[in-house]
């Protein structure tokens, strides 16, 4: 599975993406696995209320199942527009 990071999530983790093998059932499970990878990840996932998640390029919820997902992305609330 590809895990992508954007904006300050990317900066805290230090890389824009990871390719991982996981049996995580939900997004929350995946976050627990990622936190175990080190303090950069702990810093990025410190407060998930400050984060948004997309599964296969669609906005999703943290308790959503990952079944079959090929790409999960984490980022802060979006700030497009003017």
């Amino acid at each position, binding site marked *: 599975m590809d895990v*992508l990071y*954007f*904006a*300050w999530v*990317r900066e805290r983790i230090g890389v824009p993406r990871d390719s991982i093998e996981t049996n995580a059932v939900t997004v929350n499970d995946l976050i627990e696995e990622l936190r175990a990878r080190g303090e950069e990840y702990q810093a990025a996932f410190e407060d998930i209320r400050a984060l948004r998640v*997309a599964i296969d*390029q*669609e*906005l999703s919820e943290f308790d959503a199942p990952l079944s079959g997902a090929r*790409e999960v*992305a984490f*980022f*802060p*609330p*979006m*700030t*497009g*527009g*003017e």
Partner: protein
Amino acid sequence: MTVRVQQEAFDPGAELNAFTASVQGAGAVVSFTGVVRDVEGKLAEMLIEHYAGMTEKAIAKIVGDATARWNLSGALVIHRFGQLGAGDQIMMVATASRHRVDAFQAAEFLMDYLKSRAPFWKKERTAEGDAWVEARDEDEDALSRW
């Protein structure tokens, strides 16, 4: 319905005229242009990051929702990413309809959703350092009126 996500600058006036020429039977054309504001005279540049794989898909969905809801003769969204300076155009929305109410409502809807649901993130670079622009509660709240 046209969606463009691009690094290059664009000319809002030329885009407005081309859009107006492309729509049939419209009596009302509304445009919105977003411009990089200076940060108290200190902005060195604005960096816009986006989620390349998702951006056009997310915007197309927002435009689709607008065209399902209002009677539009056409809709245009252009959004830039990359490095911008104060006074540069960030993005543009245009809508056309028979009557002004539909064109205005659809343009406001597009802006509200682009702001909070299209995967762009802005960082301001000033002499004092870099700072990610934070989402404002009122932008999220703006969605509740639709």
